[in-house]
């Protein structure tokens, strides 16, 4: 999930522009590294550092390839194509397609959420929109290769993937329950902007 500088249409509030995730990781990382160095001495510190450095070096090729794949897929697959496929989808196949595209489409959060809204405007129901978002969140391939594998290793990620693969469809089905109709109405053919309020 590339959290690259967002193509902002409108200025976002200051707190949204700070990379809080990075800030917190940096504080935790440097804090704990410093603590280990002071409390446990340089030998252990160096040992942990070397292990981590080795891990980092070994995942670099995968990260680079993930970036390449993501960049090319983004350029080659037009947004209109996704709108066409997910937007028209209905029934269980509609959810499966929405989930599949969410899983394969390499994009950041600044693309995914607005795209889900566009999908609903072009005819997707809330189930498909939620299947799309959830697939991106849970089993986004690009994100798993670039981010999850370095930390957890291939086995963990594969296991979690197999386990989570059906979940976007399940979530979409649950979201289609009639109780939710009032919260997120099924879009009518001409979009009614007041529904989005």
């Amino acid at each position, binding site marked *: *999930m590339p959290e*690259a500088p967002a193509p902002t249409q409108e200025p*976002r509030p200051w707190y*949204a522009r700070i*990379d*809080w*995730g*990075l800030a917190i*990781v940096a504080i*935790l*990382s440097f804090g*704990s*590294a410093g*603590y*280990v160095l002071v409390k446990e001495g340089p030998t*252990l510190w160096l040992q*942990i*550092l070397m292990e*981590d450095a080795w891990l*980092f070096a070994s*995942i670099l*090729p995968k*990260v*680079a*390839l993930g*970036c*390449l*794949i*993501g*960049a*090319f*897929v*983004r*350029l*080659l697959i037009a947004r209109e194509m996704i709108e066409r496929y997910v937007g028209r989808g209905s029934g269980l196949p509609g959810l499966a397609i929405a989930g599949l595209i969410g899983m394969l489409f390499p994009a950041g*959060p*600044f693309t995914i959420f*607005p795209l*889900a*809204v566009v999908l*609903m405007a072009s005819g997707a129901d*809330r189930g498909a*929109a*939620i299947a799309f978002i*959830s697939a991106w969140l*849970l089993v986004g391939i690009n994100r798993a290769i*670039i981010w999850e594998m*370095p*930390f*957890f290793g*291939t086995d*963990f990620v594969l296991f*979690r993937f197999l*386990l989570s693969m059906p*979940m976007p469809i399940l*979530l979409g089905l649950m*979201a289609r329950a009639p109780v939710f109709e009032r*919260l*997120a109405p099924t879009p009518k053919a001409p979009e009614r902007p007041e529904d*989005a309020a």
Partner: protein
Amino acid sequence: MIIAFFTALLFLIALALGTVAWRRGRPLFDKGLADARSQFLHLLPRLLIGILGSGFLAHLLPRETVLAWFGPNSGWTGTLLATIAGALTPGGPVVGYALGAAALKAGADFAQVIAYVTAWSLLTLNRMLTWEMPSMPMGLITVRVIVSLPLPFLAAWLTMLVR
């Protein structure tokens, strides 16, 4: 073995996509390379910091506490705690994975870490505030959150079943 295979697979996919882009024209191909490079450079420091941190963090995490809260005997309470922790962990790609990996090294149960990663993926409050709320209707977000709430438990339960 499986890692080498996976890297080779990625390489082939990248190669195939690159070829398609090349055929569509040199500017498109160049743009792809440039995009990939800038993304890679954007990621590099984040990954480095995250990975270094997870090693030291794992060393520092209090083993007894992790075991008691998220260990193999923590049961549904552990899953609940993992779910809450996941929702409270800030979004952005590194934090949840770094903390989850650290907890796993420190003795947390596999199923609870799966629940944690699932909860963090689906429900992190911080991503909702920064990205989801500005761009999606509140009703849709509410539905998404309601249906997602049971998922970490389902994931943990399935993990325990399979294991």
